[in-house]
Each structure stands twice: as C-alpha cells, then as structure tokens.
C-alpha cells in the first residue's frame, strides 16, 4: 500500500494521530495556540469513524478530571491545552500520577507567566519535567521537533503511558502546533474491545464481577508508612524509565567541537544556526533531547570529554540549561541563550551567542 502523505498543522496531526491510534476519548477546552486539536476532532466526527468520544469540557479542570475518569476505566484518553490551561490541569495531573493512570497530555506552550502571550515559548520546561503539580511525581515528557513527530509521539506516548501506568506529556509549542509539514499517516488501529481492555488493564474500574475483588482507583493513603512505600514504588518506576526510555537525536556530533543542546522548535532553529556556523568553519553539533524526562544526561556527560563547550538554546530564560549543567558536571562550560515572551530567536542570534558565550568566553 502506498503511504499516505498529508500537509498538516502540528495540532491537526496530533488529533488525527489520536483517532488513528485507536484512542477512546479526548476531552479538552479551547485555548490558543492549540484549539485546532479539538476543532479538527469535532470536524472529523471520530464517534462515527471509530467510536471515539470527544467532548468540549467546561474548563481545563473538568477536562483533566474527565481524563482521570476515563483512564481509571482503562480507556486511552487524551487532552491538550496551552500553558495557562496546563497550569489549571496540574491538580488533575497530580491525581492521575498518584493513582498511576495512563493518559496523554499535549501542551502547545505559549509565553508566560500569567496570561502571557499567545506566541510560542518553551517556558514550561520546569513544570513539565519536575512534576508540575503537588507531590513527588514525574511525567514522561516527549518533545517533538516536527509535525511528523507530533503525529508519531501520540502512539508512542500512549504506549509508554500504558506500559508504565504514568501520564505522558507531549511538550510542543506554538511553532510546532501551528506550522504545516509533510506527515506520513499510519493505518487506522482498531480500538480495543472491552475484553482486550480488561486483559491489558486488570485494575480498570469497569464494574466488579463476582469473580474478582473490587477495583479501587485512588491516590489517597492515610497511613504514612504505606504512602511512603508508594512514593518509593514511584521512584523505582521512574528509575526504570530513566534506564530504558531515554531518546535523543545527535546531529553532526562526531567531529563537533561545540554542542548546541536544544529541543523542539529550538532544535530546528539551531539546525539552521549549525549550518551557518559550519559554513564559517566552526564545527558545531546538536544534541536534541527527544525525551525531556528522562533526560539524556549520559550522552552529554560523555560528549563533555571531547568537546569544548555547550550552548543550550531555549525559548525561556534558562530552564533546561540546569539539567545540561547537571549532566556535564562542570567538565566544560555550559551557557544558555534564549528569547522569551513569544519572541523567537533567529539562527543568526544563536550563531552570535555561541561565538560570544562559548568560543569567546
């Protein structure tokens, strides 16, 4: 069969991927720059295509709690929003992590704090990778750098979320959400039957038959020692995720003297900067973290032995740079360059930053 290629916005690709991956539900609330997700879903009428439930909730708070209800039934459920809306969802995300439920959340980041701007930013890195809501928990965070990855990460995200019974976040931004690129569309996967669901998720609250004990989905344990044991169980899970699920891309790192560390759209901007730097004879490579949690620390630690310095490029005032510094462990200089508030750094600015902060510094 000839592969199906489409020109799609990142937000549309996420929506189509949700349908194609056999998702059971999407609950969301409109917010720029990601409203195309629910608009696309509503126009596609997935309840007719696959039986998927799509509902516009009364708030982001309600939407994430609908996700909790769906996920607690073992259903494949997804929501999406942009920064202020993701802040509203944090309560629910914490409960979902605490109840060990699988789900997928897409954040099409815009500038903050507060209402901020509707233009792209990457200022939600800390919130996404260090917990976000209250309590000790982590999300698996995937950072797409193309519309194709927006599409592909939906299925990967669902798989990871069910494998580890943990919420997964796709951390995109206004650029990836709004731009159109070529997308190879995968085949339509069947939604799981109730029998398949029960087999995959024996913990699901789908009604208690006489043959098993009741299933309870909760994040509450009033006995401190048991809650502590649960917290340590989560730590063990995160350690396993760190061991097995790190993803990154190395671009021209083999002969590189300088490394730009950038994820998502910043990685794309940095690729252009890398071409400009190489044209000037400055051997530059890029480490593009694809998972932000787990973070690709080891590759950076190892590269530090043979490169001269690292520049992180983020559309923030410097968030991921802290993880890069932790990874490099003072072996080599690590500096940050970023534009914020919806301003996008130009490739030329990135070139200047590397020349001044790392080579000149």
């Amino acid at each position, binding site marked *: 069969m000839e592969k199906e290629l489409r020109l799609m916005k990142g937000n549309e690709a996420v929506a189509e991927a949700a349908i194609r991956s056999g998702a059971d539900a999407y609950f969301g609330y409109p917010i720029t720059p990601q409203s195309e997700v629910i608009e696309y879903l509503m126009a596609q009428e997935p309840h007719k295509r696959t039986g998927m*439930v799509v509902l516009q909730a009364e708030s982001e708070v309600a939407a994430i709690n609908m996700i909790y*209800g769906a996920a607690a039934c073992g259903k494949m459920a997804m929501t999406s929003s942009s920064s202020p809306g993701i802040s509203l969802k944090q*309560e629910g995300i914490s409960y979902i992590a605490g109840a060990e439920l699988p789900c997928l959340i897409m954040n099409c980041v815009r500038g903050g704090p507060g209402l901020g701007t509707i233009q792209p930013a990457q200022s939600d890195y800390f919130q996404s990778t260090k917990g976000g809501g209250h309590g000790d928990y982590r999300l698996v965070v995937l950072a797409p750098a193309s519309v194709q990855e927006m599409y592909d990460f939906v299925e990967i995200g669902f798989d990871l979320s069910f494998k580890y019974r943990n919420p997964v976040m796709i951390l995109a931004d206004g650029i990836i959400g709004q731009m159109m690129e070529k997308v190879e569309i995968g085949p339509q996967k069947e939604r799981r039957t109730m029998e398949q669901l029960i087999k995959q998720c024996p913990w699901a609250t789908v009604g208690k038959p*006489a043959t098993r004990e009741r299933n309870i989905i909760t994040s509450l344990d009033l006995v401190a020692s048991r809650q502590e044991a649960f917290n340590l169980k989560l730590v063990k899970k995160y350690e396993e995720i760190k061991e097995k699920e790190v993803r990154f891309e190395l671009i021209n790192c083999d002969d590189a003297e300088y490394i730009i560390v950038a994820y998502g759209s910043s990685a794309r901007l940095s690729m252009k900067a890398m071409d400009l730097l190489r044209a000037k004879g400055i051997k530059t490579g890029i480490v593009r973290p694809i998972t932000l949690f787990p973070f690709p620390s080891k590759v950076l630690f190892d590269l530090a032995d043979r490169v001269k310095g690292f520049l992180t490029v983020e559309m923030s005032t410097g968030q991921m740079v802290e993880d890069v510094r932790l990874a490099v462990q003072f072996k080599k200089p690590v500096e940050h360059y970023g534009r914020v508030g919806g301003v996008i750094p130009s490739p030329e600015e990135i070139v200047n930053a590397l020349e001044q902060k790392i080579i000149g510094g």
Partner: protein
Amino acid sequence: MAEITIKDIIKEENLVYKKSKVLTNNTMSYCPGCGHGTAHRLIAEVIEEMDIQSQTVGVCPVGCSVLMYNFLDLDMQQAAHGRAPALATAIKRLMPEKFVFTYQGDGDLAAIGTAETIHACNRGENITIIFVNNGIYGMTGGQMAPTTLKGMPASTCPYGRDIEMMGNPLKMTELVAQLAGTYYVTRQSVHSPVNVRRAKKAIRQAFENQKLKRGVSFVEIVSNCNSGWKLPPVKANEWMVENMFPFYPLGDIKVEGQLVTK
C-alpha cells in the same frame, strides 16, 4: 421448656435485617449517629436489588466519604475535590451501558465543584448524583460550607454565618432543577424509618432512570453532623428537623423532567 439460646434465635426465618452483599465487612469510619452510613447502605441495597453490582462504577468525593470505597463492594474511583461529576461524565460516555453514580458532600458539590456539577447537570449526563448536605465541612473539622444556614456557627464562622459578610446559603438542588439536563431532582433525609424508606425509593428511582437516558438524576440527602454541630446524635437530628428542613424542604423538586408545582 428448654432454654432458648442465641443459636435458636439466629436463623434465616427470624432475620429482620441483613447487611447488603454490596457492603463490605469493613467498619465504617463515620461518627456514631452520622447519616453517611445509612445513605451508603441504601445505595448498596438498591444496587443489590437491581442486581447491577457488576455493572456499577461509583465515584467518591473528598470529604468524610472520601473512603467510601472501603465500604461498598464496587469498582470505585476517588475524585479530586469537587470533580466527581467530570469523572462520572467520562465513565458514562465511555461505557454508556454501565450504572454510574457520584456521592458528594456539600463542600465538594456546592462549593469547589460547582462548575462540574452545573455543567454535568446541564449537559444531561445519564448519571446519578447523591448529594449529602449537612451544612458543614465535616472531615476538615467543622468549617463553614456553602450550605451552612444563616446564623449557624461553624469553626470559620464561630459567631454564626453572617450573611452580609459570608453570603447566603446555596440551594444547589433547586438550582440544578432549573437546568434542562436534569430529569429527576429530589430532596430526602435518612433520620427516621419513614424517611429512610422514602430516600431508598428515591435512590432506586435515580438508578432506574439511567436506563431511560434522559439526563441527571439528583438526590439530595439532608443529613446531620453531630460532631461538627457539637450536638449529641439525637439532638442533632432534632436540630436538623427544626432548622435545616425549613430552609431545605424535603420532597420531589423535579419528576420526569417536569418541575413539581406545590
């Protein structure tokens, strides 16, 4: 005549009451005299009588009944404070053939969860909402609730609820009855045998209605909180009859989608 032993008395034919099999053997954590235990029992009995234990998913709130899943032998989810109707919306829409209910207190349903309550009711989700209103926050230690009566003391209004300062008590049940998405709205109590029988009938109706797919069935149970009200159990019930019922009158408010005219 031989002496009658306890063994002679405990016989199937002598039974006047039996614990529903939908209740677990766990000891309930509620204060003696609290209405929650009775309300739980009625839900369990209705589910047993309808033979829908394997098809029912319940949602617990935050509040005294946060641990309800310990007492009902059902698949249950524990929701964040006020969000139970959002969970129930998703459960019912993804499994329309199941029976889905929420069990919520006044702080949960009428304060922090107002938006979720109103919108689930307005969308006409085919779920049952059991709303236990005792006019106070029980679990956190007797703070003012949205339903606390005028002049009624609570730990955050120790001199009584001052309407000018703290606003009016909220009649959530009358409010949701106005919405097109509610099919059955009633207010009951569980403080006397006759009221328990009426409340059970209402809960049964609220579960039966899910088969009709006509919208939300909403059962308020006006209840007591003798610990929070700082009254002995019997006195608490008397206080409830004298003070709560005039403001929260018992009876059906909406039946088969039509407001009841009195």
